């Protein structure tokens, strides 16, 4: 299909919208579906069909609207009203109000800081378009960036824009994306690959899932542009088997993109060819690590191998391979459309652009947010997130999942960017933010993450395999009130050793949750050890006594 034909689809779609601006959008992302939004959508369809708006007000399923804790969410156009906690019984009332005053009882203010403080780049279409219709995406400037890249830019120019944007890998480590792309592009090889890491494994993180469920075409477009830039003609999306909805929508998106000639040969009527295949993960956190992910796509056990050589030099099937995560690819189309400088104008000196966070735990507005880099933790948690519920006291926010750490109150005014988080003993990670109040025990939290790392360790290298098991045993001993101060010293020794000697990132970062809680909440460890009591009342200290200890 030629660029002109694509543009025509987009303008037809826009024109159709203009002719009939009335529309009801129901959030059909995983969160709202779990709160029964499916039934709400059906009820709305029935209410429309049985009333004066019959055939005049389409009811569309859209992607994530963000405020998951108040789902199911429904929005109306043209008024732009947002309804929360909608039940099927509310359908008639909502349909009746499409052209009149809003149903106040159900209304969720768009003026909430939760919405006002957000900036949509990755999530610009999320909750706006139907993720199962490529026409919706095209009407929202979709694939304009790809056409622009293919017809107006040389691969090196595409990489130049990505470099100028200052975009850093959103999977956790924050490696400069432009640099990665140019390394792959420069590698001498016949074949190169592009991999999208959608094996979002951090517990408490669902950013990638949401992007895939809400705007899958955006990820495909980012990957195709990457393929063009680095000279690859094949891409893989490695997605968690635990995300069936995301998989289904990706499959639909790939099929539709192929149908319009956006995947396959002669993309956009040029010589460029690119194909994308899905590969399902099978429940192994370690496969988020690049070399383990590659081993898994090759059909083997997901065990990492020492680097160098880096995947950019020798990756999938031995060929130079570009691996970025979902959010990184999702940033690419707007960067190409608006230019790298536009993107670099957002964020901080060393962390450009925006970041998507999954805000969960003991916080009022749980859900998905996108804010500029550099916003303070206090703003994110207490303004955007609405603070800690039930009048309880904020204790810590956990970022970066099992590789991250717990950040205490004294750092709340710290700007959120890669470097500040690292300085505070945590990491940006993929974007999970779990807020904890005074009812959480930080030793128990450390034990929780160590259990995670122990059972997710691939077992290849000794420090991670046996070290995490020893550390877990020590943490359990502390929680049960059976530990002595020597055990704490041994735990710290092990943290240092496992961090410095493990083969891959999983082991190297496994001690982080322990180290950060030891750094800021050492008194809680000491209370368990010396007074045999858990200040938060979570651990059953002294309940389990082993003979001879």
């Amino acid at each position, binding site marked *: 299909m030629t660029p002109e034909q694509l543009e025509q689809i987009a303008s037809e779609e826009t024109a159709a919208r203009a002719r009939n601006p009335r529309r009801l959008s129901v959030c059909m992302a995983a969160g709202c579906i779990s*709160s029964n939004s499916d039934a709400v959508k059906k009820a709305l369809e029935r209410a429309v069909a049985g009333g004066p708006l019959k055939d005049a007000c389409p009811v569309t399923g859209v992607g994530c609207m963000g405020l*998951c804790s108040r789902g199911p969410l429904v929005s109306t156009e043209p008024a732009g009203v947002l309804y929360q906690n909608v039940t099927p019984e509310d359908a008639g009332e909502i349909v009746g109000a499409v052209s009149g005053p809003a149903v106040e009882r159900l209304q969720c203010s768009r003026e909430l800081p939760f919405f006002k403080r957000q900036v949509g780049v990755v999530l610009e279409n999320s909750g706006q378009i139907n993720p199962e219709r490529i026409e919706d995406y095209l009407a929202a400037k979709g694939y304009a960036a790809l056409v622009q890249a293919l017809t107006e830019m040389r691969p090196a120019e595409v990489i130049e824009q990505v470099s100028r944007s200052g975009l850093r890998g959103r999977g956790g480590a924050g490696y400069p994306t432009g640099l990665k792309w140019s390394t792959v592009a420069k590698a001498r090889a016949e074949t190169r690959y592009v991999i999208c890491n959608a094996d*979002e494994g951090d*517990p408490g993180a669902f950013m990638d*899932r949401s992007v895939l469920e809400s705007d899958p075409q955006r990820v495909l477009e980012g990957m195709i542009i990457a393929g063009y830039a680095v000279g690859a003609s094949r891409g893989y999306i490695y997605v968690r088997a635990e995300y069936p909805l995301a998989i289904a929508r990706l499959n639909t998106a790939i099929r539709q993109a192929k149908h319009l000639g956006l995947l396959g040969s002669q993309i956009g009527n040029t010589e460029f060819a690119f194909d994308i295949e899905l*590969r399902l993960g099978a*429940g192994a956190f370690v496969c988020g690590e690049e070399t383990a992910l590659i081993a898994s796509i090759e*059909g083997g056990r997901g065990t990492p191998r020492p680097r160098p050589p880096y995947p950019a030099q020798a990756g999938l099937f031995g060929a130079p391979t570009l691996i970025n995560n979902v959010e990184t690819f999702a940033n690419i189309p707007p960067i190409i459309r608006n230019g790298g400088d536009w993107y670099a104008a957002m964020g901080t000196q060393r962390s450009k652009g925006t970041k998507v966070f999954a805000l969960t735990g003991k916080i009022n507005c749980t859900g998905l947010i996108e804010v500029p880099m550099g916003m303070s933790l206090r703003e994110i948690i207490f303004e955007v997130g609405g603070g800690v519920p039930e009048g309880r006291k904020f204790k810590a926010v956990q970022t970066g*999942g099992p590789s991250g750490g717990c950040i205490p109150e004294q750092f709340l005014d710290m700007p959120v960017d890669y470097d500040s988080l690292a300085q505070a003993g945590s990491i940006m990670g993929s974007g999970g933010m779990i807020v904890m109040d005074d009812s959480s025990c930080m030793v128990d939290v450390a034990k929780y993450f160590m259990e995670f790392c122990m059972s997710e360790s691939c077992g290849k290298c000794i420090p991670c395999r046996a070290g995490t098991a020893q550390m877990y045993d020590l943490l359990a001993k502390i929680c049960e009130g059976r530990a002595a101060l020597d055990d704490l010293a041994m735990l710290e020794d092990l943290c240092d050793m496992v961090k410095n000697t493990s083969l891959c990132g999983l082991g190297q970062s496994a001690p982080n949750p322990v180290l950060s809680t030891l750094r800021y909440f050492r008194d809680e460890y000491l209370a368990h050890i010396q007074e045999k009591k858990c200040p938060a009342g979570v651990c059953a200290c002294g309940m389990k006594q082993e003979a001879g200890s």
Partner: protein
Amino acid sequence: MPPTLGKASPPSEDKRWKIVAATMRRHGFSRNALIETLHTVQQSFGFLDRPSLEYVAQSLRVPLSKAFGVATFYHFFSLKPPGDHTCVICLGTACYIKGAPQLLAEVEQSLGIKQGETTADGHVSVLTARCVGSCSLAPVALFDSEVAPRLNAVEMRGRLARWMPS
């Protein structure tokens, strides 16, 4: 291409093996398709057993021990048949700090089995998940893939009771 390529015979006459064979064919009987094929087997039969692993390994020319190594490396694959119903407790961080351990204890106690086990009558399996991504509705559990949001012990018992034969 060796002559035996794709010629290993399926363990039984069951029609579902045709779906498995189709997956392998789609990938040109490439060794790289081992995980994809195991996904299809598990989707079709609910679990992986020895005969199925042997069939897949031979068809794709993957060493038997490698196939077994892969099948046991990934926790999504199960070598035991699941119960008629499956209850998956999410142990993601958000669920954990909002009471998932208590939910797990509750379900283990009321069914008399541990996580990863199936009741003796094969009726209910209890599993745990690392994170199902419904953190904003924590704590959650999946009852036969249906997400139950903001779950408490009472509701948990109610849900389980619905599965019990009347």
